[in-house]
């Protein structure tokens, strides 16, 4: 199949974003704007900022804009809380035509007043949407006045949708977080065995799983950004002695900032899959230069690996030789997924991300076999084309991609925000294996290939030809 030049792509401009390993000179266009009309799967700046900050449980998250932005993100993340539930509300200034004409600052100020009076939060985030950037409401000024009036922190998040893509929203969120955690009166005293965990949003309790691993190593989880975080816990962030970063796409910027300003070094880690989880625990243990911690890490890895070995083995037997396509938000997740599929005997034949970075694509390209298609900012037409050409049996993606996979008769695994089972750590690897098995080995596919009853010989071909 000759698509090395991608000459048959309907939109030629997309060719630069697609690369087949071993058939082309390495190189892939990424970190660029989406092309108009191409049905990109990407979200906006506001979305990036909202998903990162929203898990902070005791904050008021107020969206300054028309209703849609708040409506589509109400309780969107399955981030769990061990305490407050305020973050599960969606507050909006619900701007109307009148507000757009005369400016929304007064309404915003009243909205903050009403919310603070009613809920007494320690912290308010105010998110800018497209419209706020255009009509020029002075978010900084309104937030400053409100903060002084109520004696709490009111932090503007500069997340106008059109000013870049989701990755720009991650940076806006990091900027807002930094305003919160920057120590006001000099650096606090460092706690020696204390770790911050960045880039985990506690979907289905994943922060708690990783926290318990750290505890078993003899380390303290100081604060996680932002899963199950509170105003108080975030204020202590600068006291940790190490930052570990899971979702590098969203948190790399903040990790760098904390290294530079607070002197906290960071490690990129991943708790997706057995290999990455074990490797991450070892590197964390090694960082502290204490052989007792390393010893405990080895014991933990041995114990937990043994506990899930049976599940992984039995799934592996059923899945050997299957081929997967991956289309996820960030590069780190894609890299871990390729390794995780390998643990299950599955080859990844198509891999793409919405916001992967250059370095991440380089790693991806190293990892995959010759012939694998790598693509940035893919659209449904491309996913369809490459999944069929490469003979994928399943797709990993988000909600928008699921119906496409099913319509093509392919299995599907959700790796999205609202799942209700953890995919992190050893237990997560077992859950993942079970989920892959449940979809790839489902009896439903047998019927997809069964001829339609009563159809004449010719009429049955469509189903058999799949």
């Amino acid at each position, binding site marked *: 199949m000759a698509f090395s030049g991608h000459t048959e792509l309907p939109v030629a401009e997309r060719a630069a974003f697609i690369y087949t390993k071993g058939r082309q000179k390495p190189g892939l266009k990424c970190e660029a704007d989406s092309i108009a009309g191409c049905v990109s799967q990407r979200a906006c700046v506001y979305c990036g900022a909202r998903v990162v900050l929203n898990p902070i449980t005791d904050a008021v998250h107020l969206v300054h804009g028309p209703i849609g932005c708040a409506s589509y993100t109400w309780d969107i993340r399955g981030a769990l809380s061990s305490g407050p539930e305020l973050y599960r509300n969606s507050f909006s*200034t619900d701007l109307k035509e009148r507000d757009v004409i005369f400016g929304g600052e007064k309404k915003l100020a009243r909205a903050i007043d009403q919310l603070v009076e009613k809920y007494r939060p320690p912290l308010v985030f105010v998110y800018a949407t497209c419209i706020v950037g255009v009509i020029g409401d002075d978010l900084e000024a309104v937030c400053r006045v409100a903060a002084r009036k109520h004696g709490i922190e009111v932090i503007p998040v500069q997340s106008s949708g059109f000013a870049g893509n989701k990755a720009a929203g991650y940076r806006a969120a990091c900027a807002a977080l930094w305003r919160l955690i920057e120590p006001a009166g000099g650096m606090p005293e460092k706690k020696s065995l204390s770790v911050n965990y960045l880039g985990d949003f506690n979907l289905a309790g994943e922060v708690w799983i990783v926290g318990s691993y750290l505890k078993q190593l003899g380390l303290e989880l100081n604060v996680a950004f932002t899963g199950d975080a509170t105003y108080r816990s975030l204020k202590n962030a600068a006291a940790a002695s190490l930052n570990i970063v899971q979702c590098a796409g969203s948190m790399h910027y903040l990790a760098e900032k904390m290294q530079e300003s607070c002197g906290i070094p960071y490690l990129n880690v991943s708790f997706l899959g057995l290999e990455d989880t074990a490797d991450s625990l070892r590197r964390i243990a090694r960082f502290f230069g204490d052989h007792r911690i390393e010893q405990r890490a080895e014991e933990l890895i041995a114990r937990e690996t043994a506990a899930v070995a049976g599940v992984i083995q039995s799934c592996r037997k059923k899945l050997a030789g299957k081929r997967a396509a991956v289309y996820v938000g960030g590069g780190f997740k894609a890299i871990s997924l390729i390794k995780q599929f390998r643990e299950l005997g599955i080859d990844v034949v198509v891999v793409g991300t919405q916001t992967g970075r250059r370095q991440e694509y380089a790693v991806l390209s190293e990892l995959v076999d010759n012939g694998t298609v790598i693509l940035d900012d893919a659209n449904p037409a491309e996913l369809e084309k490459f999944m069929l050409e490469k003979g994928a049996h399943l797709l990993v993606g988000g909600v928008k991609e699921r119906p496409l996979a099913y319509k093509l008769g392919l299995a599907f695994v959700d790796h999205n925000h609202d799942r209700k089972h953890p995919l992190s750590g050893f237990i997560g690897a077992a859950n993942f294996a079970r989920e892959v098995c449940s979809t790839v080995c489902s009896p439903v596919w047998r019927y997809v290939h069964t001829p339609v009853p009563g159809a004449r010989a010719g009429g049955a071909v469509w189903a058999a030809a799949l």
Partner: protein
Amino acid sequence: MLEQEAADYRAVNENPCHMCMPLGAILPFKGVERAMVLIHGSQGCSTYMRRHLAEHFHEPIDVASSALNEQGTIYGGEASLKKGLDNLVKLYQPGVIGILTTCLAETIGEDTARVAADYLREKRPPGLHLITVSTPGYGGTHSEGYFLALRRIVVSLTGRSEKHPAINIIAPHLSPADLREIKRILELWQVDYILLPDFSETLDGPLARPYKKIPPGGTRVRDIARMGGARATIQLGLTVDDAISPGCYLAEECGVPLYKLPVPTGLANTDLFMELLGQLTGRPLPASLARERGRLLDCMIDAHKHNAQGRAVIFGEPEIVYAVTSFCLENGIEPVVVATGSNDHRLPGLLKNRLEETGASPCFLREADFQRIREKSREREANIAIGHSDGRYLTEKEGIPLVRHGFPIHDRVGGQRLLSVGYAGSIMFLDRITNTLLESKHQNYRLRLYQAFYRPAGPDSRQEEG
């Protein structure tokens, strides 16, 4: 006169009960043959709406974006829009493209009608219709967006037409299953009809090979062109403002007699629909429908005592809320809170007679959010909620069980298959409601009666068994 409480006093919307205009405007286009939608604005809008719609319909929802960035926002988005159209044509070869605006495009003053006209003049794409709809996110809710898009489709595609005996049916935002039921009823009456929109197949498609990027089905453009010559229009929409009513346009511009009817959910509303079909065709009610009517009555009798204990909070789009409220009234369920996120002010007047007959006096809320709906539901002791999935908040916070109905149903499968129109659909809908009341009563009656009547000897006399 029944009063409706508006939300003018409020600076903040707490947990929205409505969505934005462009989301509503996508749907009618999904019910037109070979149509696609391009949203002129930043990338996130189309992504969010696709996600929201995909989760309800479980179907691929391909919607393009002009992906306006900062530059386009400052210097104008004409180039992005034209490029978007070019690429969308290349990828999908649509026959119709609906061009919707967003908050952003409206505020920077994009003239999409002019750009679309220029595009057609410059490129002369054979057989392509461009239909622009002005849908600022702050201009109304998704309900208004839906009808405005329908009207723009009719205005753009309906030309001079010979008189013919077909009847136009304008459908509000119903489920694909409901649209199929309306078609079945019309076929039983042997009525020649043009149903607009018709997403009964496109948003609930069977598994078929080969996969088609634009699913087959939808109202044919040449049928829409003939709507001006139809014998009559039946608009299933009482709450629609004349300015955005497709039926009013056809009456005023083409002289097609207009009959406005409610959604045929419930005995009385379905009777109205059948009466009119009888009048227009001069034929009696088909025997199979007469039997279905009898079965509905039988079902209403079986369930009436259970239903008499229902105190309902009803919320959603005004047209659906009207139908559900009258449905509750005819079944002896008392509506205690009737709420819509839209600015509709017609509901109390439209329901006045039916309410007076039964003596019910619900609290009406417009521009409602779920915080207000919750307060009122508690105050009025609602024991059942009927509306879309976001009402699960009422279940979680107040223990009020929810019968899922309308849009979005994003926490259950089968939103696209929920049937509630016609006699047959009403039976299924009523069973869902009655069974929810029965279930709720069973769960609570032991404890309730114990607390009410048992006089314990001591504080801990009641021990849990087992």
